[in-house]
C-alpha cells in the first residue's frame, strides 16, 4: 500500500494541477494579507473560501484522478495485490498531496506575515485542520461516486451535483425547514442537521472560535451546552472523523463486489 501511495503521490506531485492548486493558495494568502494586513480579517475571508473551494477541488480531483488512472489501476489489479491496498494507496496519495498544497500554500504567506506573533494562530491552525479534513472527506466521497459509475460523464455530473448539494442546496433546505417549522423547538434539529453535512460541520467548527459571541445569542440549553463548552468542539471533530471513515469503509465494501 505504501508503494502505491508513493506512486500516486509522486504522480500527483509531478502533475501540473497540484502546482496550480498550490500556487492558487499561495497567491490567495499573499493577496489577502497584502491587501488588508489584518490577520483576523484574512482568516474570516479564508474561512469562506476554504469551506467552498476545498470540497470542490477535492471532489473534482478525486473523480478526475480515478478516471484518468483507470487503465493503470486495471493493470495493477492484474498483479497479485489486494484491491484494498491499491485503492487506499491512491486515495491517500490524492488526499495527502491536496492537503499538502493547502497547508503549504496558505502556511507560507501567513508564516511570513508573522502568524506566530499573532493571537490568531489557533484560529488559523483550526482552519488548516478543517481544510485538511474536507480534503479527505471529499476525495473519499468522489471515489465512492467514481467507483459506482463507470460512465465518466455521469460520474462527473454526480460529483459536481453532490458538491452543489452539500455546499448550497442543503443549507437552503435547512433554512426553509427552520422557517416552516418555526413553531417547534428546533435547537436539537438544527444541531443535528449540521452534523449531516461536512461543510456545515466545518463551518461550525471554525465559528466556534471566530463567532462564538453570536452563536451564544440564541436562548437554548442545548445550544449553550454545545457552543459554550468544549463539548461542541469534541463532538464536531469526532463527527468529522466519522465523515472520513464511513466513505472509506464504503469504498472497501464496494471494491469487494466490483467487477472491473
Amino acid at each position, binding site marked *: 500500500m505504501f508503494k502505491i501511495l508513493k506512486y500516486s503521490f509522486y504522480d500527483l506531485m509531478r502533475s501540473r494541477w497540484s502546482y496550480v492548486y498550490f500556487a492558487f493558495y499561495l497567491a490567495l494568502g499573499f493577496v489577502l494579507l497584502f491587501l488588508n494586513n489584518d490577520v483576523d480579517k484574512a482568516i474570516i475571508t479564508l474561512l469562506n473560501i476554504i469551506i467552498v473551494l476545498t470540497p470542490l477541488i477535492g471532489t473534482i480531483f478525486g473523480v478526475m484522478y480515478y478516471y484518468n488512472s483507470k487503465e493503470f489501476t486495471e493493470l495493477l489489479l492484474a498483479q497479485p495485490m489486494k484491491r484494498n491496498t491499491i485503492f487506499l494507496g491512491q486515495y491517500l496519495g490524492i488526499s495527502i498531496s491536496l492537503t499538502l498544497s493547502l497547508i503549504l500554500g496558505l502556511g507560507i504567506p501567513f508564516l511570513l506575515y508573522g502568524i506566530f506573533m499573532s493571537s490568531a494562530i489557533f484560529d488559523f491552525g483550526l482552519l488548516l485542520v478543517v481544510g485538511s479534513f474536507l480534503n479527505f472527506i471529499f476525495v473519499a466521497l468522489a471515489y465512492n461516486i467514481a467507483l459506482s459509475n463507470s460512465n465518466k460523464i455521469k460520474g462527473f455530473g454526480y460529483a459536481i451535483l453532490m458538491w452543489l448539494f452539500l455546499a448550497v442546496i442543503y*443549507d437552503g433546505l435547512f433554512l426553509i425547514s427552520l422557517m416552516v417549522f418555526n413553531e417547534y423547538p428546533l435547537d436539537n434539529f438544527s444541531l443535528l442537521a449540521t452534523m449531516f453535512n461536512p461543510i*456545515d460541520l466545518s463551518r461550525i467548527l471554525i465559528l466556534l472560535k471566530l*463567532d462564538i*459571541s453570536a452563536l451564544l*445569542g440564541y436562548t437554548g440549553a442545548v445550544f449553550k451546552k454545545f457552543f*459554550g463548552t468544549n463539548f461542541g468542539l469534541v463532538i464536531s471533530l469526532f463527527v468529522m472523523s466519522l465523515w472520513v471513515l464511513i466513505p472509506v469503509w464504503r469504498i472497501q465494501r464496494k471494491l469487494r463486489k466490483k467487477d472491473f
Partner: protein
Amino acid sequence: MKNLRLTILALFFCSSLLASQIEVCNSCQVKSIKQALSLAKDGDEILIKEGVYKESGIAVDKSVKIIGVGLPTVDGEHKETIFTVKANNFSIEGLRIINVGHSYTKDFAAILVSKSKNFTLQNNVLEKVFFGLLIEKSRYGIIKNNKLISDAEDQAGSGNGIHLWHSEDMQIENNELTGLRDGIYFEFVKNSMVRNNRSYENLRYGLHFMFSNNNEYNDNVFTNNGAGVAVMFSKFVKMTNNQFIQNWGSASYGLLLKEIYDAEIENNTFSKNTIGISVDGSTRINYKNNTFSRNGWAIKVVGACYENHFNQNNFLHNAIDLSYNSKINSNTFDSNYWSEYTGYDLDKNGIGDVPYRPVKLFSYIAHRTPESIVLLRSLFVDIINFSEKVSPVFTPDNLLDNSPLMQKIQ
C-alpha cells in the same frame, strides 16, 4: 465685650486643637473601633493599627476620619452591616472589611452611608460582602481606589458592589469590582461621575443605571459580566471612552439602552459581545467614534427609537452589523466605516460612492428564527444576502449609509 470675643476665639482655638488622634490597636488603651468612636469628637482622627477587629454594627455619627494603618481587618463575622454612617465631613480609608451578613430581607453592607454630605471612602478592600458600599440620600461623596470582591452565586441572594440610591454629586473613581450582583448600581442619582473603574465577572450587570439623570461615565472597563451594562430610564447620560468586552449570552449586552433620552455615546469600544448595543425605546442619542469589533450583533435596534444618529463609528468583522426590526423612523447612519463594505471610491475623497446597506437579509431571518444562527457565514446565506442587497424586499430599503468611509477611523 472685647473679652467675650477673645474668650470665644480662645474656645474655638482650643476646640480645634483638641481635634486629636485616637489610636486603636490590640495592645493600645482603646481596643475596639466602637470604643474609639464613643470617645471621639467631631473632627477627630481614629487611627486603626494593623490587626483583626471582630466588630459589626459600628455606628458612626460624628465627623471623624477613620484611617487604617497597614490595612487592618474588620471582620463582620457574617452578622449584619459593619459600618453605618450618618454624619457629614467624614472619611473611611485603608480598611479591609470582610464577611458582611447575608439576608433576603435586609440590605446589609460593608459601609452604609445615609443622609450624609462631604465624605470620602477610599483605599478600602472589601471581601465577601453582601452589599459593598451602600449610599443613600447623600451628597458630595468621593468613592475612590476601593477593591470589592465577593462570591455571589445567585441574583436573589447577592448584593451590589457600589449601590447609590437618591444621591447627588458623587464621584466614583478607580474602583475594582468583581463577583457581585451588579458592580455599580445607580438609582435616582444625579450629577455624578463614574470614572476609571474596572467591573468584571459580576453576576448581572457591570454597571446598572436606573432613573438617574445627568450622569457621566468614562474610561471604565466592563468585562465578562453576566448581562453586560444596562442603562435604563435615564436622561442626559454621557458615556465616553469605556470598554465593553466579552459579555456573552442570550440576554447579554455590551450596553443595553432602554428608555434613554438625550445621551452621548462616544469613543467607546465594544468587543466580542453577543450584542454590542441593544437600543430599545431610546431617543435623541448620538453615537460617535465608537468601535464595534467581532461582536455577534454590533447594534440591535428593537423599536420605538427616534433621532438616533450613528456617525463615524467603526464596524469591524461583526457577525451581524445591524439588526433592525421596525421602521427606519428618524434614525440615521452616516459616515461610518463598515468592514463588510465592498463599494469603490472613484473620486478618491475617502467616501464610498455606493451607499452601504447595514441590514442584511440574514439578520432579518435570524431575528425571526433564532436557530438559523447556525447557518452564519454559509455560502447559501451569502447568496441570499447578495440577492437582497441587489433588490431589497424584506429589509427597509431606506436604511442606508450614504457616505460609508473607505478607511477605518483611528
